């Protein structure tokens, strides 16, 4: 175990590409980073891990010049970078790809790749055929079949990410920062991405790789640095450290049993779909039953129709085939509010856009789906709201000093707890969870899993969509695998294995 220090070890400094020393940054008196130091070699993939709020995002922003640190220094090839800014770091060959692809939706792929990269000054002339040619070459290099003239808004998420990588390549990036690139990718797309990353590594690009999916790190990372509370804790060769060791370093304590699944007696059928489908959502012929106290998982690649199924059930997309039954009674849902009245709840995939309203206070977010219950003859019952908010904030352990703070002040995991609280308030009989632990730190993840088990014990029927195989295998009683907009296969907990699920998802 080596405590990161950068003065000695001459062997490593030889091919040291990027070096950050004692970076400090605080916002309004709160330390986001303090004494963060690490270095990156050329031709390596360096993983950066830590709980949400550990300072990873801020560190990246410091490196790319998006944020000016309070103190500390960064050097590239031994030369100190002074007065960093996005354009300076870009010109030095530092590129970043963020969780949400930062493309220009109205512009073409070729233009997206070219923006900010042409050497001509601001009054330089755009050479369109050259742009197109260059985009084609770059996309070919990473094996992406994308038309350079397509408008970016028409691309899928993985395609957009590939365009970003092509853009970074085009900028002759020597340092490439990937912030949770696989968060919304299917297994297939992830594999393709890893292939591209390995090729880049071979060509000498140094990469900083940030991910919550610890299980994928051994496959791609060379070294790993753990961040906790704004500090770089330790740096290891990836081969020297196990997942559980990493987790311990990240949370600073031991975690016993990642999946707290307990057996619950399967109750009556609560929710049932028969031949359910929607052309608009791209799903068809879905048969599914969920019993009280049961957790049913849905696996599948991105685009298999998992989120679309959830949205159709919840009334966000109109169904056009089949029937939906709640406790044996046929129901129709035309709007989420009708679903809520029937005690069917949906925790959406995109937390920041759909799960919570970031700028509203925690209290308002928690009661937002149950405003009807708070409405009285004289107006809204504010005292009841306060009680509910305080109760759930405490029960789910949301880390906040006050219930009237905006949700945006919370870390990702705590935001997710608020989003979950909102649905618990509605007393759901059926709870649909869409990637409930995506982008959530390890501690919160375990708490959410624990909560799911508690709910199941209370007789709630849970449908969980997840791209994380261990989570599905660890938490679910049954796992439905979707492919091409319908359920391809159904596994009992005892029968399911990672391989079986994956091959079903791939349509084999």
């Amino acid at each position, binding site marked *: 175990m080596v405590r990161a220090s950068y003065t000695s070890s001459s062997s490593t400094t030889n091919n040291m590409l990027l070096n950050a020393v004692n970076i400090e940054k605080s916002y309004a008196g709160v330390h986001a980073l303090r004494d963060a130091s690490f270095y990156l070699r050329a031709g390596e993939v360096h993983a950066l891990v830590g709980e949400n709020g550990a300072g990873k995002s801020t560190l990246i922003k410091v490196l790319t010049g998006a944020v000016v640190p309070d103190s500390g220094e960064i050097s590239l090839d031994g030369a100190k970078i002074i007065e960093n800014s996005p354009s300076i770091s870009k010109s030095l060959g530092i590129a970043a790809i963020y969780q949400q692809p930062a493309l220009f939706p109205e512009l073409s792929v070729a233009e997206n790749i070219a923006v900010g990269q042409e050497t001509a000054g601001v009054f330089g002339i755009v050479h369109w055929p050259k742009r197109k040619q260059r985009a084609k070459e770059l996309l070919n290099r990473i094996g992406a079949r994308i038309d350079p003239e397509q408008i970016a808004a028409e691309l899928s998420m993985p395609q957009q990410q590939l365009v970003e990588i092509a853009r970074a390549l085009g900028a002759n990036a020597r340092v490439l920062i990937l912030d949770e690139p696989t968060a919304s990718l299917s297994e297939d797309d992830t594999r393709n991405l890893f292939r591209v990353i390995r090729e880049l590594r071979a060509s000498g690009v140094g990469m900083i790789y940030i991910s919550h999916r610890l299980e994928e790190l051994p496959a791609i990372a060379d070294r790993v640095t753990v961040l906790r509370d704004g500090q770089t804790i330790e740096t290891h060769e990836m081969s020297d450290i196990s997942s559980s060791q990493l987790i311990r370093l990240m949370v600073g304590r031991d975690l016993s049993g990642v999946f707290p699944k307990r057996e619950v007696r399967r109750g009556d059928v609560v929710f049932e779909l028969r031949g359910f489908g929607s052309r608009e959502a791209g799903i068809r012929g879905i048969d599914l039953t969920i019993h009280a106290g049961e957790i049913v998982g849905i696996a599948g690649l991105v685009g298999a129709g998992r989120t679309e199924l959830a949205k159709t059930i919840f009334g966000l997309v109109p169904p056009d085939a089949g029937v939906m039954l709640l406790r044996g009674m046929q129901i129709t849902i035309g709007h*989420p509010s009708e679903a809520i009245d029937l005690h069917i709840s949906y925790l959406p995939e995109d937390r920041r856009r759909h799960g919570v309203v970031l700028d509203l206070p925690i209290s308002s977010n928690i009661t937002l789906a149950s405003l009807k219950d708070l409405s009285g003859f004289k107006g809204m019952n504010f005292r009841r709201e306060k009680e509910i908010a305080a109760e759930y904030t405490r029960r789910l352990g949301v880390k906040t000093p006050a219930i009237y703070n905006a949700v945006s002040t919370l870390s990702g995991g705590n935001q997710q707890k608020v989003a979950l609280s909102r649905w618990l308030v509605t007393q759901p009989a059926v709870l649909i969870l869409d990637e409930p632990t995506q982008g959530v730190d390890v501690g919160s993840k375990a708490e959410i899993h624990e909560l799911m088990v508690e709910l199941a014990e209370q007789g709630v029927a849970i449908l969980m969509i997840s791209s994380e195989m261990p989570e599905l295998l660890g938490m679910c009683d049954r796992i439905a695998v979707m492919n091409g907009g319908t359920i391809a296969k159904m596994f009992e907990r005892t029968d399911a294995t990672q391989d079986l699920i994956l091959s079903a998802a791939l349509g084999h």
Partner: protein
Amino acid sequence: MDEAISQPQQVPLRTEQDWSARLFPNNEWILLIVIAVECLLFAFSGNNFATTGNAFEVTRLSVEIGLLALIMTPIIITGGIDLSVGSMMGLSAVVMGGLWRDAGLSMPVAIAITLVVGLLGGALNAAMITKLKAPPLIVTLGTFSLFRGIAEGLTRGIENYSGFSPSYLFFGQGYVGGVVPTQLFFFVPAILLFWWWLHRTTFGRSYYAIGFSQEGSRYAGIKVRRRLNFMYCMSGLLSSLAAVIYVAHLGQAKSDAGTGYELTAIAAVVLGGASIFGGRGTILGTILGLLAIVILQNGLRISGQPTELAGILTGVLLVTTILIDRLSRIGVSRITVSEEEFEVKNWQVGVLSGVILVAAFIVAASNWMLVRSIKEQGGSAPAAQSQNAATSTGKKNVIAMMPKAKGDPYFISCRKGAEEAAKELGAELLWDGPTDLDPAKQNEIVQAWITRGVDAIAVSVENKEGISTVLRKAREKGIKVITWDADSEKDARDFLINQATPQGIGETLTDEAARIMGSKGEFAIVTASLSAANQNEWIKFIKHRLAEKYPDMKLVAIQPSDGDRDKAFAETQNILKVYPNVKLVMGIAAPAVPGVAEAVKQSGRTDVKVTGLSLPNMCKPYVKEGIIDSFVLWNTGDLGYLTVYAANALSNGSFKPGETKIKAGRLNEIEVVGDEVRLGKPFIFNKGNIDNFDF
């Protein structure tokens, strides 16, 4: 549950809000300070500013805009905007007037149908915004034109509904218990209702959620579309209600009702702390923002400061408050969402803004100096100050004089004469009026003068029915009232300074046209705006005269110029092409005539002549070139001069009803007939005499 996982809260969870956050969730206290400073300033600089009467008047004047601002608050909170509210007022006003007068419906029925029309207009906005998902700014920009356009189309611009029953007018003009303006009984409950709706119900809560995130709200089961539909429909309804009160307030219904009100309403809401990006804003803030604006306007008037200052200060206030708000938020920027960072350091921005502001000031100041110097050169030599006038009474009379619109060159030339007279008499002249034709503003200004306390008020009346109530009130308070240029109702004033009757103007114009055209052929008129009351009156008499005396002359077109020289120019070009037989184009608004003349000149059509009603200085070059054959007007300087003399004599008691003559300085004796002081007949300017005039 594992103890290690669920840690106990490290700090106790606070579940109570600070009193300041609860009372002023949006830093509304800043506005309280602004209002306090305004009140303090005006209490010293203005007469009778800090009185109960004035306080009530201020609120009365803010009712219509206030209603619009109330509904604009939730609209802006949801991140939308509604530019069509002012236009909807215009449409509602004419619909109500038409239903009542032309369709003969009773007032309550007419009002009810009008409110339904408002609702339908709002529904159109709502449908475009929620069904077609079009941006509110553009949708309401479209309906902004559409509603006003329909109002003008329905009334052909000229209809002016008036003569409403006193019981209806009471809603806009009356007092309950002698002091409290009637419309406050609508406004105050409306404020409370909106406050309750927005801040005390779950309904209101959902608007804030929608403002921060429409999608997120839908996922939480909020019926976003239904909420927005309801809100935009309400916006139409409230605009109609505002129009009903506006008409009762002014006593007339015309298609130009509520012009520009949308901008003031938006300014009030934003000044009140609402964010145009949605999510933030309160009813308290809106009301305070509204008060800050109307108190500023009222206070400046009472202190005798020019109206324009109110606009400038409102703009400064608006920019400053959002700037302060913006800067104060940088300090407490959120940790997790810190995307928005300042790239340029604050001091750099500060220096830069400073430099730009200074530069802007230099430009403005040098322009001002240049304009001033040019005016000095071109203006008439100031009249020698008369020594004897002031000493004879020993008291300095305050004479308040109001034009229809301050920026109109016609009235500017009147002002010169008025100032000359005031100087000779040693009286204090207050010259103020609306910046654009606006009957509601005229009432506000008279009201401010009553509050301030003046000796005489002289008004060029834009709207007869509307202003008479307030003029009567002035007389009750012992203020002498004169109307000049255009009359009010007879019992609302002591005297009318009559330069020419609409009939006289119409007939003179027609006779001049007939003379030039040889009493036959086609001609066209370029008027001011289609809803301009004076011009429509003149056109009426022109048509009479034509039917009576000149059957061979044909009026082929009446085109609007909106008081804009450039538009008059373009319209005349069209007329010349569409009606090639036109022998003469008559411009009947001062800025229109030079536009008409320029168009005729550029067309090279020497066979077409120009006449009309305008000012000598504007037309001089064209008269000399022979494009304008002749035009009609009276000596505007003399009009202003005579008005001030009459007002002064009236307040001194040296001029009383029943007299047949009045002595007016250099004009010597002027004839008085009944309650009219007659300046004389309209004057015809032509090549021969134009050089004798400079105004």
